[in-house]
């Protein structure tokens, strides 16, 4: 068949397909009401897969007959648009978000328990190592921090200060929230993406942050700032440390898949692992958000008796880990 005959035979069908595509993608994107002249095209919703398969067949025929670039390009554009519409992943709706936090996220956390144990060992291990070192040899702290920033940190926890954490007045809570959310979340995201270097980046960030936190904590406790230090960190510690741990877990899983891809190419294994591990990061992001909120608006209050803050801190730890270990057990079939 000559090209122009083919064209005459099918051009009407292509134009109809184009019209249906236009209506479907427009109404799909914002759910607005459809005007009357589009109703006819709307009636063709159900015919879309059928029409799309016809287009792909015509494209194959046109290619095998060696029709010209213009004709094939037109069919290709139609086929591509149809393909993208029909095979698009489903979008996340509110119900999906809810289900994610009620069951999927804690289930995924439990399923990754091996990586959780390794990440916890690396992170908390280096934290206790640094704390122990600084407790025994106080001068070790100067290998990690210069005296000036150390003095800055000490002044934050000065028992005479009006607020804990950073020098500030009350309206500064929001400022600190902004600072914490940016700073802490970035640490978590970096810990995750470091997994791309065969997990080495993740281990680096876990060790680095573990050493840092442990050393500063031990230093402050040894220098008589124990009460302000513990009463400041107890509230948000559960969320923040767990969020870092989860970011590390996800990063280690990425790294492990690169080392041990199984019966897949390394790249395929990485893509599949990343798309699933990143769901742990969604959860870690929310935990970082909670941590920043507690840190800025609760931990900084000095008027409360330390016992109250300790109790709340312990309660947060218990609730968070109960959630991670128990929530969604029915749903995932365990």
């Amino acid at each position, binding site marked *: 068949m000559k090209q122009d005959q083919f064209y005459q035979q099918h051009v009407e069908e292509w134009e109809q397909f184009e019209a249906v595509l236009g209506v479907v993608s427009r109404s799909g994107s914002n759910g607005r009401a459809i005007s009357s002249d589009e109703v006819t095209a709307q009636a063709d919703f159900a015919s879309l897969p059928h029409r799309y398969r016809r287009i792909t067949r015509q494209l194959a025929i046109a290619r095998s007959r060696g029709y010209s670039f*213009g004709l094939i390009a037109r069919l290709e554009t139609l086929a*591509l648009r149809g*393909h993208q519409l029909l*095979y698009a992943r489903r979008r996340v709706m509110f119900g999906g978000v809810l289900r994610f936090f009620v069951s999927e996220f804690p289930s995924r956390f439990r399923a990754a328990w091996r990586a959780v144990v390794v990440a916890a060992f690396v992170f908390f291990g280096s934290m206790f190592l640094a704390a122990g070192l600084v407790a025994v040899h106080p001068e070790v702290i100067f290998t990690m921090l210069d005296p000036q920033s150390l003095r800055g940190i000490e002044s934050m926890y000065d028992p005479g200060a009006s607020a804990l954490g950073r020098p500030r007045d009350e309206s500064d809570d*929001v400022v600190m929230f902004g600072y914490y959310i940016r700073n802490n979340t970035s640490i978590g995201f970096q810990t995750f993406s470091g997994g791309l270097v065969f997990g080495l980046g993740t281990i680096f960030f876990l060790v680095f942050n573990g050493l840092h936190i442990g050393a500063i904590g031990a230093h402050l406790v040894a220098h008589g700032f124990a009460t302000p230090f513990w009463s400041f960190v107890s509230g948000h510690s559960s969320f923040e440390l767990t969020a870092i741990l989860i970011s590390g877990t996800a990063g280690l899983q990425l790294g492990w898949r690169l080392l041990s891809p199984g019966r897949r190419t390394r790249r395929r294994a990485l893509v599949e692992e990343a798309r699933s591990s*990143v769901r742990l990061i969604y959860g870690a992001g929310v935990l970082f958000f909670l941590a920043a909120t507690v840190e800025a608006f609760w931990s900084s209050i000095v008027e409360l008796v330390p016992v109250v803050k300790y109790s709340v801190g312990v309660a947060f730890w218990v609730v968070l880990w109960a959630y991670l270990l128990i929530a969604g057990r029915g749903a995932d079939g365990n």
Partner: protein
Amino acid sequence: MGKRNISSALTPLDSIVRVETPEGVELELRTAGPLPRAFAWLIDISIRGAIHLFLFAVLLTLDRLGYGLFLITLFALEWFYPVLFEVYFGGATPGKRAMGLQVLHDDGTPVALPASTVRNLIRFVDFLPLFYTLGFFSMVLDGRFRRLGDLAGGTFVVYAPSSTPRLGRQGSMRTPPAVRLTRDEQRAVMEFAERAPGLARDRATELASIPTPLVGHSSDPVSRLYAVANHLAGSL
């Protein structure tokens, strides 16, 4: 994958990527290289900068509280701007849209939340040590211009399909070719007729006079070739 490796040894160097659909046809996508993507990034960063500047001016009137809110929006824009646009606005941030680019999964479908989040989180690694050095090397070494975030997310950046190309038939003359033409040759002649109107007149003449067996030593080889194209396409 294996199939692609064999064929890539035979096909010429090209930025076209073929994606096979479940219906068994191959769709051709044109991947975008570092330069247009760098421009898109520059546009995006300028837009974000402008938003920051605006917010800063407005929120400054709220004193310290405003500064706090500003820091929060700074964080939100940094991490959510690309993901939101890629997932909910047709796979393109405003910068990519301006450059005619689009992010797709490597099976050609529009990018969804997990893949988009991965590619934008790993942006951090791509940026290292400075100004996307790792990302740049990853892009130029990979056959599909993927930076590390794209490799991990299973995505690539392509030129969004442009408006429907038209079939141009030039003139009404129809002449059968003087010699027997292979299918590729027939196709080349038809494509010449589609593209020549976009060329300078001299260049079109120069190109049209190359297949001498078809056009002889005519003074107007372009029209001669148009006529052959019309015959081959079977113009009515």
